[in-house]
Structure formats: structure tokens, C-alpha cells
């Protein structure tokens, strides 16, 4: 099995110092800082609430991507996959942004009073008062801390063990580490599922404290998996087009990532439609109010854009085998899904304050670029620092040789 490993040339496994990929980290870092500064400047011209909502939208976008990465890594070990070894490092690099995201959550925690109606001093609504045992700031902070403790812990250990495998020459140690990750994956998945669910309750569902749905955790999950699959497919295709990793991440991997992408796009649509249908049919005001806000004025247009763009277009575009095996086409499809995922998050968060229609501002763009720039800076910095694939994984050779039939 080590035969194939020998064939992996060093310049394929590391980004050459002269490569344009290596310049991306500082570029994105600069963009991120500029974006955040612009956002702060723009914040002076608007309300604090608007700024925080804009920030929350951008934050949830990048957080969902990072959590998707964590899911991908955990899933890889849970099901003992071998094809996905060679794309796993990129997912690990995505999870490594979680410490940064924990830091970037501070404005949201500090500004919680201005975001969540239930946190605003005296609550007069008896329904919301009834939820006080859950929706109160100390408990909210405690839970937030717990979620990040879980995510950071999982991301840290899985990344560290994977890097340890890279450096190790000892075959026994490598096997031991893979075994360890495989053993921890099921428990990690349970913790991930619960923390992700309650995080989406706290940060998305409670924006409208009267509204509730048992599906919110699954909805957020489906969006975040679409995001990570799109991101991985985008990166795989982009690296391929730039001549990197061609022998390691092959068209077979592109094909599989594309399949999973369209699969989760369908899953997203299934979940979104199921929730909508159940609420539409029963037509109970306390539940339909949430959709009501999203079906007035220009929000209705955005709802249709979301349904067509996040489901209809990729359904037909990504269906074809040829598209998934053409890097340029896959790149376009993945980029499209990454853009639509922003609309999805925006559509979930923003109608809370813009009741009468879509009101996209420069501030929304600035916060998105701000958080995203820092996120991508970390990602590309790690991409340059460590091998592009987990070179120490005992299953790498199998992954490289993987073929669809």
C-alpha cells in the first residue's frame, strides 16, 4: 500500500512557496480587517441593532461552514470512509477556524440585549415570559460557552491527531491514531448533533421568541452541510485548475463531492419544504407568522429566489455526471451554492428587523467580507503551513486509488 504513497510528489502535497495560493492568506487577512473596519465605520450611521443583525448574518454563514467541516471530519471516521481521506485535510483546516469564530462571537454575546427581544429588560409577553427558564442571558452565555467548548475540543483533538499522523514515521502509531479517531467519532457526532441543534435554537429560532419549530436544528444542519460540500468541491476544483494535487484529489473525488453536494441540496429542500408544508397546511397563526414575514414585499421575491436557486437550479445543473467531472463546471456549481447559502442565512435572520422588504446594505457586505476574510486567512494560512492532504493517514493510498464505477 505504501507503493502509491511514494508516487505522491512533494510539490503536489505542499503548496510551492511561489504559488499564488500562498499569497491568499495575507490578502484575505487584509480584506477581513478592512471589512470589519468599514463595518464599524458604517455602524456609526445606523442603529446598533442593524449592525449586530448584519454581523450575526455574516457570522452564522461562516460558523455554519466551520460546523459543516466538523461534521465532515466526524462523519469520515464514523463510517470509516476511505475515499474522502484526500479531501479531509481541507475540512480539518475549516474546523481550525473555530477558535477565531469563538473570538468573533464576542460582539454578539455583548450585544445580545440588542439582538434578542427576550433579552431586552422587562418582557411583557406572557408567552416569552414562560420561556424565561431557557431564554435568559446567564444561561444563554453558559450554553454558548458549552457549545464552543464542544466544538473547539472536537476540532482541536481531531486536527491534532491528524497532524501527529502526518509527522509520524511509526506505522503502529499511525494505526493507533486512526483507531482513536474512529473510536471518538460516534460520541463526537452525538455531541455535535446536540450542540449544533441548541445553538441554532439560541441564535436563529429565538430571534423571534414566540416562534418555534422542532425542525430548526435539522434546517441549520442541512444548510451547513450544503455549505461545506460546496466549499470542498470549490476548493478541490480550484486546486485542480491551478495544477495542484491533480494526482491526489482526482476527478473521482470531484465526482463524489458533487454527488454529496447535490444529495444534500435535495436534503435541504426536503427539510425546508416539509416544515413549510406542515405550517402552511395547519395554518396556525403562532407558527405561520414566521413565514408571513418572509412572504411580504420583496421578501417574497427572495423566498422564490431561494427556492429556485437553492433547489431548482442545482437540481438540474449538478445532476449530470459530466458536470461533476468537469472541474470548471463543478467550480461554478459550488460557487453558486456558496452564494445561495448566504441568501438562505440572510433569509432566516434579516426579516426579523426588516419587516417590510429586503434591505441589503453595504454594511451587510462589509461584515460578510470582514468575518469571511479572517476566516479564509486562517484557512489559507493553514493550507500553506501543513500538507494539503493527511499524508500520514494509512488509508490515503486507497483514497488516491479510489474509482467510481
Amino acid at each position, binding site marked *: 500500500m505504501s507503493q502509491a504513497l511514494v508516487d505522491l510528489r512533494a510539490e503536489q502535497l505542499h503548496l510551492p512557496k511561489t504559488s499564488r495560493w500562498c499569497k491568499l492568506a495575507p490578502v484575505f487577512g487584509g480584506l477581513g480587517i478592512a471589512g470589519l473596519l468599514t463595518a464599524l465605520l458604517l455602524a456609526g450611521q445606523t442603529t446598533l441593532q442593524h449592525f449586530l443583525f448584519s454581523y450575526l448574518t455574516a457570522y452564522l454563514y461562516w460558523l455554519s461552514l466551520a460546523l459543516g467541516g466538523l461534521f465532515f471530519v466526524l462523519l469520515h471516521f464514523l463510517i470509516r470512509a476511505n475515499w474522502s481521506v484526500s479531501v479531509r485535510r481541507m475540512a480539518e483546516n475549516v474546523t481550525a477556524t473555530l477558535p477565531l469564530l469563538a473570538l468573533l462571537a464576542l460582539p454578539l454575546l455583548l450585544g445580545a440585549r440588542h439582538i434578542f427581544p427576550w433579552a431586552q429588560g422587562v418582557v411583557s409577553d406572557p408567552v416569552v415570559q414562560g420561556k424565561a427558564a431557557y431564554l435568559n442571558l446567564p444561561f444563554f452565555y453558559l450554553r454558548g460557552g458549552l457549545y464552543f467548548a464542544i466544538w473547539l475540543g472536537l476540532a482541536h483533538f481531531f486536527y491534532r491527531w491528524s497532524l501527529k499522523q502526518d509527522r509520524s514515521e511509526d506505522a503502529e502509531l499511525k494505526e493507533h491514531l486512526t483507531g482513536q479517531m474512529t473510536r471518538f467519532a460516534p460520541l463526537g457526532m452525538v455531541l455535535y448533533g446536540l450542540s449544533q441543534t441548541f445553538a441554532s435554537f439560541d441564535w436563529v429560532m429565538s430571534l423571534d421568541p414566540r416562534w418555534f419549530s422542532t425542525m430548526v436544528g435539522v434546517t441549520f444542519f442541512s444548510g451547513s452541510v450544503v455549505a461545506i460540500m460546496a466549499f470542498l468541491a470549490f476548493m478541490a476544483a480550484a486546486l485542480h485548475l491551478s495544477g495542484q494535487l491533480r494526482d491526489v484529489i482526482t476527478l473521482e473525488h470531484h465526482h463524489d463531492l458533487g454527488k454529496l453536494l447535490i444529495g444534500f441540496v435535495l436534503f435541504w429542500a426536503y427539510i425546508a419544504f416539509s416544515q413549510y*408544508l*406542515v405550517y402552511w397546511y395547519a395554518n396556525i397563526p403562532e407558527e405561520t407568522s414566521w413565514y408571513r414575514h418572509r412572504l411580504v414585499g420583496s421578501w417574497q421575491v427572495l423566498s422564490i429566489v431561494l427556492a429556485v436557486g437553492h433547489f431548482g437550479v442545482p437540481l438540474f445543473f449538478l445532476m449530470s455526471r459530466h458536470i461533476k467531472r468537469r472541474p470548471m463546471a463543478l467550480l461554478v456549481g459550488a460557487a453558486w451554492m456558496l452564494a445561495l447559502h448566504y441568501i438562505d442565512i440572510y433569509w432566516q435572520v434579516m426579516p426579523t428587523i426588516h419587516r417590510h422588504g429586503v434591505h441589503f446594505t453595504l454594511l451587510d457586505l462589509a461584515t460578510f467580507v470582514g468575518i469571511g476574510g479572517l476566516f479564509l486567512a486562517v484557512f489559507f494560512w493553514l493550507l500553506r503551513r501543513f500538507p494539503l492532504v493527511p499524508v500520514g493517514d494509512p488509508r490515503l493510498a*486507497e483514497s488516491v486509488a479510489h474509482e467510481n464505477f
Partner: protein
Amino acid sequence: MATPRVSAVEHEANLSDPLSGRAPLLLGDRSLHGITKAVCRPVECVPSRAWTLFFVVSVAMMGLYVLTTAYLFYEGIGIWGVNNPVNWGWAISNFVFWVGISHAGTLISAVLYLFRQKWRTSINRFAEAMTIFAVVCALSYPTIHVGRVWLLHWVFPIPNQMGTWPNFRSPLLWDVFAVTIYGLVSFIFWYLGMIPDLATLRDRAKTRARKITYGIFALGWRGSTRHWKHYERAYLLLAALATPLVLSVHSIVSFDFAISQLPGWHTTIFPPYFVAGAVFSGFAMVLTLMVIARWAFKFEHIVTIRHLENMAKVILLTGMIIAYAYGMELFIAWYGQNPYESFSCANRAFGPYAWAYWIMIVCNVIAPQIFWFKRARQNVVVLFVVSILINIGMWFERFVITVTSLHRDFLPSSWGDYSPTFFDVAALVGSFGLFFTLFALFIRYLPMVAMSEVKAGLPEAKPHHGAEGGSREASATGEGA
């Protein structure tokens, strides 16, 4: 004929998780002829006394179903325990129970196929057969529940001079479409996959009658490359078509409940939760039947402990998903602060049907947790007992959902209680008779294991087999999970 000898080393390899390559899936005699012989034997030998006894008892139970149904048509559904306010009783629970059971077959044959899970080949035929028989059982309930069974064709949108149409906004009509299509696609998929094996039976037939019968159903299969090419393509397409059905059928069944305004029924997580529950119960049923069948028909070397362990893992996974759904329902019932919803939840756990609720929790949430332990997953007795518990638990889940939400109406003056009559019990027992009768016929006349697919998973079936200088074949005796 005794089970082929299997050495301890082979057993160990079968249960191992090698880091490179995959553990061998088959034990004992792995030759092409050996597989054919092991699978065809139950079909070709004189039926054993055990099989005959099983068949007779099953037919007797089915006879009970026929009789109780005949009386139902004569007397009306008043013979069941259903009344206001519990208009849906055991019949609906049974319907959902059987539809759920059917899901494992499609998941194994279609979804696991797309996920390249080679271990599925040993169990997919068996599970698909179960799917079809379970759909037959499931469809029988709405059929006899309609009251005027002679007007059953009205469930279909058939043009008529009165211009009456079924209500297209009713999930009950969606059920008609969903379950019918599901049954049809599952049947076609099952039959298509069986064609090469039917040809094998035809070629091995010793009597003219067998030769002609299997010959007709083998559709002239000669195993030419052209045949295989078409077959593989059709199989892939049907797998892709059947995959959405795994999700859609039970989602639509869940809409029967979820789109209403009834507390305990109306909750958004119902569609995916029902699908997970269906796969959960279906795998439990496959496990129950497979544990018996592999022992009785001596193909423990084809359906190994590893296959059983993999099924136990799927059961654990789907069991965790339904535990999650139960938890979400409880949390949101409190979080939503809707007094009716919280009452309904409390009533389930502590009301008159609390015993049913706790049976459900113990069987569905607590029992499968034992599968966290490898030793439990590899112990046939534990697997069998837990799978039976899950079958019971999943029936009670549907009972709890149906009855507890109905028996406490919004108006306390309309509250009532429900208890089944003899005819309810007879209909449930009878449906098992129908199911087992079909199953007995299946194992008697059709190959229980997809021989051609099992063989295609062997190392010599690989296009590059032998061409790599034997570097990989040492580790690969069929790839698997």
C-alpha cells in the same frame, strides 16, 4: 448438508477492521459454485418439516385475517374499537407499522448501493422481499378501513360522469399515490435484480415444469455482456429513482398526522423523524428474520456476523435519530408554551396510556443503546432479542401517536378512551399471517440471497484482478463495510 467449515482465523478476519483494504465479507466456501449451491439448496430440496409447519401456521393466521375481514365487510368497521373521539385505532397503527417495516429493503437495495456498501449484497434480496410483503400488509389496512370497500376505486382520480374527484389536498390521497408507487418501484427493482438468479435456477432445474416456470420469469437471460450492460444501467437508474422514495413515502405518511392541528401530531420534525423510525423498525425486522433464516438454511457463511453487526450499527444510528426527535418534541412542547401541546406531552407520559409510552421509550430509546458495545453487536442472541423489542416498540410508537393525541380532544366533554376489540387483535395477528405466508413462499421458491451480486463482490470479479501482481488480493476477499 452441514454449514461449510469456518476456521477461527477466518472469523477473526471477518470481524476485523483492517486499516488498509477491507475485511473479507464471506466465509467458508467462497467459490462461485459453492455460493450457488448454498443459496439454491433451500429452493431445490424437499421442504423440511419445520418449513411446512411454519407455512401451515402462517396460512392459518392469514385465514384469520380473511375471516375477520369478511365479517368486517358484512358488519362494518363498528366491530373495531374505533369510535369518537378515537376514530383511528389499530388499523392506522398497523398501516404505519408495516409501511415503516418496508423501508429497510429500499434503503439497503438503493441507498446502500449508491453509497457503495458492498456488504448489502448478502442481505438485499431478503430485505427487498420483506419490503414488498410489508407494503402488501400495509395497503390492506386502508383498503378495509374505507367502510364501503366496493367503492375503493374512488381513491384514484378516475374521470367519471359525476365530475367527482378525490381531494387533491388530502394527504390520504398522497398516501395512495406514494405507497402504490413505492410498492410498484420496489417490486420492479426486486424483480429486475432477481433476473440473473432466476436464470441460474432455470439452468439448474431438474424437472421440465421448473425449467419452464423459471425460464419464463428469467426473461431469456443468457448472461451475455450486452445483457449485463443493460442490467447494470437499469439497476443504477432504479436505485437512483428508489432513493427519493425512501424519504418520500414515510414523509407523506407522517403528513397524515403532521398537517393537522392536533397537539402531538402537528410538529415539523415529523417527516424526517418518521423516515428514521421506518428505517429503524425495518432493519430490526430484517435482523429478526435474518437471524432465523441464516441459521435455518445454513448460510451463516454468506450472511456473517459482520453483516449482522453492520445492521446493528444502522439500528443504533436511526435509534439515536428518533431519540433526538422524541427529545425535540418534548423540548419544543415546553418551549412553545402552548398549553394544549404541553398537556398532550404530559398526557402521553403520565396519562392513561403512559404504559404504552414507556414501553415505546424503553424499547426504542433504551434497548438499542446496548449496541454501543461491540460484544452486543456480535452476539446473535442479543441481536435477536433487541430486534424483537424494537419491533414491539415501533408498533407502540404508532399506537401512542395515534391514540393518545385523539383520546383527549380540545373540549374535555369530548374526551373518550380507546380499547381494541377481538377483531382489532385478529387483524394485526392476521397481517403477520399474510406476511409470513408470503415470506414462506419466497424462501421456498426464490433465491434468498442475490447470488450474482455476491459473486460480483468477490475479488476475482474485479476488472484488474490478478493484473496488479497480486499485491491487493491478499487483503481483499470481497470488499465491504
